[in-house]
């Protein structure tokens, strides 16, 4: 089997950033406090912006610098801040009690998913000319862990953070494999993300007003 190890400095830094991002996803999965979810997501996004900056230095690409700056400002700072201010503080949300699976079993599930990502994305299927080839299975694992977060957590805020982690995973994969989309597309993706988070925050606060807990566990009115 071919090795996934990176040789260049940029490759090593990119691998390191991906591993830290994976750990952030695990930390989120292993936590029970809303404040922590948001903090880990913020940390993960800042590491993502670092990864984008590494690629920007490597490729001498202005578009990637802009992407790194946008990621840092929007995902690293603005979204965590807005979630704290408009949801956690306003509705005094502290501890997530609506878990469908216990913390330890969800961590074990997460470990299985990470192993699965490595098995599914075999090194020989990854093109050899990438800067850091371990990033592809790692970003797949982050996507899967974000999905797991959305499944094992019933609270709407946890689901929101889970989706954002999935999004970070896709972005990491995109940065590592294709470096950059045409700028107009990237800007559009960011606009969608901002609009999406704004609408979701509005829905969560609407639900928090109606249901006291805003947990998707209480969302049973429509089940058939």
């Amino acid at each position: 089997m071919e090795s996934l190890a990176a040789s260049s400095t940029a490759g090593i830094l990119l691998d390191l950033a991906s591993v830290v991002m994976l750990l952030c996803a695990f930390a989120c999965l292993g936590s029970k406090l809303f404040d922590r979810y948001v903090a880990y997501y913020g940390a993960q996004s800042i590491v993502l912006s670092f990864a984008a900056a590494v690629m920007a230095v490597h490729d001498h690409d202005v578009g990637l610098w802009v992407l790194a700056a946008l990621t840092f400002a929007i995902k690293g700072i603005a979204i965590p801040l807005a979630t704290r201010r408009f949801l956690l503080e306003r509705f005094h949300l502290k501890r997530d009690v609506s878990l469908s699976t216990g913390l330890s079993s969800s961590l074990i599930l997460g470990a299985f998913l990470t192993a699965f990502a490595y098995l599914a994305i075999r090194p020989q299927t990854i093109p050899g000319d990438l800067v850091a080839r371990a990033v592809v299975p790692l970003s797949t694992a982050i996507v899967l862990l974000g999905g797991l977060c959305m499944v094992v957590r019933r609270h709407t805020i946890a689901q929101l953070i889970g989706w954002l982690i999935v999004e970070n995973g896709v972005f990491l994969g995109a940065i590592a494999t294709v470096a950059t989309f045409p700028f107009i597309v990237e800007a559009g993706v960011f606009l969608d993300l901002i609009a999406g988070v704004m609408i979701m925050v509005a829905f969560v606060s609407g639900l928090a007003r109606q249901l006291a807990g805003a947990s998707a566990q209480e969302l049973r009115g429509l089940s058939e």
Partner: protein
Amino acid sequence: MSALVAAVICLPLASAVAAAFTARARTLGAVAIAAGLGTLAVAIAIAIRVSDGHSFTAVSGFVYLDPLSGFFMLTIAIVVALASMGSAAYMRADEADHGLGPLQVRLYFVFFALFASMMLAAFATGSLGLLWVLIEASTLASCVLVGLEADALSLEAAWKYIIISSFGVTIALAGTVFLYYAASGMGGSPTDHLTWQFLHAHAHGLSGQSLRLAFLLVVVGYGTKVGLAPMHSWLPDAHAQAPSPASAMLSGALLNTGMYAIVRFRAITDLAIGGEYASHVLLVFGFLSVVVGTLFIVLRGNFKRMFAYSSVEHMGIITIALGFGGTLGLYGALLQTLTHAIGKTVLFLTSGDVLLRFRTRLTSDVHGLLGALPLSGAALILGSIAVAGSPPFGVFLSELTIIRAGFADAAPALAIALLVLLAVVFIALVGAVAQMTFGTGPPRVRDRPYPDRASRLAAATPLVAGLIGLLLLGVWIPAGLNSLIMHSIRVIS
């Protein structure tokens, strides 16, 4: 042509602009109707220009129109025009009943406009990345409509909708990244690698392994928006809880926008690695959707949910037709897209009338609709007969074409299975609707459900126009439309 494209994207926004100045449903409805009809006229003009096989490119491929986009644009513009009339009437009735406050009326027209505009813009771009951006934007606009009533149930439906489809389209973004990657070794600028024209022309050079993964991710991702089983779970809730004209837009327009993306990716995959792979993937998802749709239609329960499951079933049929492929299959798929869009718009607009009059969504609580609301009752029974695929309506013709495609594709067993499922749907759907329309119900009251003459007219026109359209498509396909569909098929095969 550039002016026409700009017009078709900007015209629907007129009612959003008007909503900045007034919150009166009557004024906003009138603006929305004018905007909707204007959009339809421009879309027809665009469709005529591309119906002879011409395509149009501007801004290095970011703006791109070919017969296929012209066809989908026409379909969606028809739905927008019909639904804007429905919206005018429905919002006026809700305002008169104090069901919705002034802010909600404003929000409805703003997001209805954005929703329509984003979908129409999605057909006018050749960049598959921008297509993703616009489809996600249309999802976001439409989920505000789903959560508009702001009670616990509609917020729940809206939450389910936004979280599931955002997750889905994020998967589609990963698919788009892989497609972009599959093209990365080729010549041309990086911007080209994401445009349909380049990818279609150079499909043979794409890396097969990345493309397989890309197609699967795209079908799962955009399939979530199309409502393919098993990713359909948001669809019945969102359709049931949205205001009825918005449900019509979801079913008739939004689902087709997702399908359009799948059609484009299917064409690239077919050209690059042969038709077998894409065909198998689509047939599996298509059949699963038809089976799930059929099972839940039999349950009846809530009539808006029943129509929503009928959308799942129809999207499954279109996916199966794409899987059968060939000229016959693709013709059936495109015709079915148009006929289903019109038929389902009529059904959801009628269900809005029923909801306003009977104040229930339960099928078993509605009786004697024909007596209480003669026009809506007639539209409901004729519309469901049409949607269930009975002659002489257009859906019959498109479903027949698809089943013929199945036999031609040497898959007679699949075609027969589809035929059996369609028969079950017909019995269940028409049976449930017959129960609602016939029998004795509440008496006919002149002013209900719509408060004035103008809104009664706005409510009735789309029903009559839609049914006449369906009837016409069943007996006669205009030469222009036929040529548009044939050229669309040439684009994607």
